[in-house]
């Protein structure tokens, strides 16, 4: 058992995903590697099309059939990449679960919430209908749904957005997964409800010793909720490290740009936001070399020649940039601590 606790739960090595988009084949994820021990939490930050959700979907085995996955994904040492769909079905919702952004579309409007929470229990744990119902009530109670015994036969539309997200969390937790993937779990919710849901997820992760991958575009959500983080852009990880370390000294011009572009409370009217020029590139036409080169204020010719390697800039803190000497001197992040 000692071996089990030190071995990484999930190990992703040089993951690549090629998708067929309407604009031709696109490399949605390139060379993503990370490993996560039991109980550890990892954040993925980035904008639309940066590959964070595709990375999550490849862990869940939910990519479209036309997608081509390279590299390896190992769960407790067992290879998941290329696993047959039937075998993946035994893992999904059982050892790996996911919470989605839109609680309304993640729930089936035609089924009662009780049936939806009980479904993974019936399927994976072979509970009887009665057992599963009892367990579903207990789960709904744990996630803070008021009066679950009475409301278990209600339909999703009878709940508010925050309550629906609690229900999807109960579904994801039903089989006590080892790994929980939360893809923008609070983006559709009010800021006060967001706090409650994130508190709930943090409690459950701690209580059950799960590992968690939290995907968000919100640097604030990442800063407060995960131990380690990866910033993604154009399908590659451009910066990774312990969350505190990254926020103390941001190394990649993109991370710095994201941080500066956020409107901040207390920044008065009349001040201008520092923007990142240009727009998020389509995956089908990423620039050669560094994926951020077209929008980067520090770009030099060498940036366009080849994808920069990950450079170590601190303990466990890597930055995929050849100009870290300049970018780190700007000291972005430290001042706002």
């Amino acid at each position, binding site marked *: 058992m000692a071996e089990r606790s030190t071995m990484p739960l999930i190990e992703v090595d040089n993951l690549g995903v090629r998708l067929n988009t309407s604009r031709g084949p696109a490399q949605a994820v390139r060379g993503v590697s990370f490993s996560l021990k039991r109980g550890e939490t990892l954040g993925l930050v980035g*904008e*639309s099309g940066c590959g964070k959700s595709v990375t999550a979907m490849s862990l869940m085995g939910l990519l479209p059939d036309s997608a081509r996955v390279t590299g390896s994904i190992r769960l407790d040492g067992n290879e998941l990449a290329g696993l047959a769909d039937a075998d993946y079905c035994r893992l999904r919702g059982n050892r790996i679960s996911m919470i989605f952004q839109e609680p309304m579309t993640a729930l089936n409007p035609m089924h009662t919430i009780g049936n939806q929470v009980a479904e993974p229990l019936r399927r994976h744990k072979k509970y009887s209908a009665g057992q599963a119902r009892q367990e579903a009530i207990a789960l709904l109670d744990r996630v*803070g749904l008021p009066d679950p015994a009475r409301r278990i036969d209600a339909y999703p539309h009878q709940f*508010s*957005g*925050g309550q629906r997200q609690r229900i999807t969390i109960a579904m994801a937790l039903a089989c006590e997964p080892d790994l929980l993937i939360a893809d923008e779990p609070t983006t559709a919710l*009010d*800021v*006060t*409800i*967001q*706090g*409650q849901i*994130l*508190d709930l997820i*943090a409690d459950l992760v701690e209580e059950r010793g799960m590992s968690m991958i939290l995907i968000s*575009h*919100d*640097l*604030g*959500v*990442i*800063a*407060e*909720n995960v131990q380690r983080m990866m910033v993604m852009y154009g399908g590659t990880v451009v910066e990774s490290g312990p*969350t*505190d*370390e990254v*926020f*103390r000294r941001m190394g990649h011009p993109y991370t710095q*740009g*994201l*941080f500066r*572009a*956020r*409107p*901040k*409370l*207390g*920044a*008065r*009217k009349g*001040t*201008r*936001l*520092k*923007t*990142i020029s240009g*727009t*998020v590139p389509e995956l089908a036409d990423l620039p050669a070399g560094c994926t951020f080169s077209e*929008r980067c204020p520090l770009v030099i010719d060498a940036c366009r020649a080849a994808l920069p390697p990950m450079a170590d800039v601190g303990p466990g803190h890597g930055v995929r940039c050849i100009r870290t000497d300049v970018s780190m001197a700007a000291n972005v*992040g*430290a*001042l*706002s*601590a």
Partner: protein
Amino acid sequence: MSTAPLLDVKDLEQRYTLPRESLFRPPGQVRALNGVSVQVQAGKSLGIVGESGSGKSTFARVVMALERPTSGQVALLGRDLNRIPPDELRRARRDFQMVFQDPYGSLDPRQIIARIVAEPLTVLEGADRTTFRDRVAAVLKQVGLREADMDKYPHEFSGGQRQRIAIARALITQPKLIVADEPVSALDVSVQAQVLNLMQDLQEQFGLSYILISHDLAVVDYLCDEVAVMYLGRIVEQGRPEDLFEHCAHPYTRALLDAVPRARAGGGRRRRGAQAIASQSAAATGCPYVARCALADQHCREALPELRRVGEGHLAACHKAESVMALPQAAMEG
């Protein structure tokens, strides 16, 4: 110079009738707006913040004269929008335009940009749309797009560019007021900043007023001269952003501020108390926030607090505003 406000909203109430549950009882009502009064001066911006269900989008729809309020008045440039004849209202619409949240849903995918942007003109001036191409080209330039973009379709643009198109469509009638309902919340962070800067530039250039509806306090802080915090159809606090965010006087504003996740090192989890969601349909006595308020006492449960002055240009509807202001304030980001 007259100091008459551009927009003068008085005692606005909007009620929606719920489906009848029983044959023998009158149907329930949702009080979406409960006596909202607010003024916007020309060239100034008002931000409206609050959670879903606070009535902020209903407020926008009523100000845009898309709905008739149950009672109260909305006066733009001295005309009560609900009293003027429909024909005059349609002509008056050139003075107030709207930008919606979702730049994907708000542009017709089957029409070219020139036609989308010129549509308010074709409705207002009735002339042939081909004569508007020069004006469309000019307004596209103002929002940072190119003349060549006129003959493209919406799907050829990114989210940020689509929101620029939506802003161009609002600008083309040279309005005095633009009501923007969550204009940047569907955009990527790096693009959000570009659109917010653009909105600020346009305001300086044309002396526009904005009513900016947002759940993001930082966005409102950045763009607005005044902020109103709404809760269950009422304004519970109103004032300049610096007063509101540095010396907030209502516990609800405080809760909103505390809930914003801060992007900084050593953040860690900050625990928040569980908050029950109050009901909108109950015609309760006392303060509507009482169920969620940590400071509530018997008086709060019995008497509805009026919106009252707690500082220079700073209003709050709380019996305990002074004690809230005396609390250590939420830390700001640098």
